[in-house]
């Protein structure tokens, strides 16, 4: 949706409008997760002790590693725009590719985390989870919903960047016309921002 503000007949380009549109779209993502953060805060407030207990299951190291990976991918995303502006298309393309690659590693880590939890029976509706306290059930419910939705956004972001790579190769995105890449970058950074909050809320409260 980030794309252009071109009128079919009358080609006029307004990068500012595209960016405003993208920011507004980011707000919708923000309040989408905002609803979940509201839930998290209420349940954490009403079940503090249980949340601490449940968070002990989380592997802080993998969480921190994933944070670092996502932050680094944000860096490469930002660098790809600078590279393009300075005229090095190849460098920009490699930065975009690296960003996708980091996104992939993030997802692989997430996969191992989730399968570990599934393995020990911490998934919605499982017998061992149902035997735990209510706060722990809520914690894991929120954990799956929030990180799952976030993971979905990572996947979407990777797909968007892949399309941007194609655009860069085909010179749809160029040194002077890079607003699409910028919009994709904004999306990627927002996904990063959401993780910046998810990380302490799930991994650092034990």
């Amino acid at each position, binding site marked *: 949706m980030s794309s252009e503000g071109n009128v079919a007949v009358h080609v006029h380009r307004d990068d500012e409008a595209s960016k405003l549109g993208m920011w507004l779209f980011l707000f919708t993502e923000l309040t989408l997760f905002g609803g979940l953060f509201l839930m998290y805060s209420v349940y954490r407030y009403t079940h503090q002790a249980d949340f601490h207990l449940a968070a002990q299951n989380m592997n802080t190291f993998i969480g921190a590693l994933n944070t670092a990976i996502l932050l680094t991918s944000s*860096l490469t995303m930002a660098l790809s725009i600078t590279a393009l502006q300075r005229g090095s298309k190849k460098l920009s393309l490699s930065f975009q590719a690296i960003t996708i690659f980091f996104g992939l590693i993030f997802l692989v880590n997430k996969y191992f985390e989730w399968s570990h939890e599934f393995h020990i029976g911490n998934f919605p509706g499982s017998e061992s989870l149902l035997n735990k306290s209510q706060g722990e059930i809520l914690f894991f419910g929120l954990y799956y919903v929030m990180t799952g939705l976030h993971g979905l956004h990572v996947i979407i972001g990777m797909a968007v960047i892949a399309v941007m790579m194609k655009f860069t190769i085909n010179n749809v995105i160029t040194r002077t016309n890079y607003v699409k890449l910028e919009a994709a970058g904004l999306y990627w950074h927002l996904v990063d921002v959401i993780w910046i*909050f998810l990380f*302490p809320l799930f991994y650092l409260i034990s």
Partner: protein
Amino acid sequence: MEGKDKHTIHNHSYTAYIIVWLALLTFTAITVAVAGINFGNSTIAIALIIASIKTYLVLTIFMHLKLENKTFKIFVIIAIFFLVISFILLFSDYSNI
């Protein structure tokens, strides 16, 4: 209105981004380290403050908010304001159960 756009390149330098990235990693390390210490109820507050600082860095530098005009900044303030108010009003129900 503002019909003709100057396509002036506005962006930060490679170095600026790398410095911000290093800062972000440092803050991540700090927040992990601090989480190990028991500050009682303020543990979560400290973690959220650090997360907010990191978010500020990402918003202003990575997302170029610093270079954008006032409209963008007002937009972001409106969105954050809305979320904060929602939290406050929701907790008017839960805070004194």
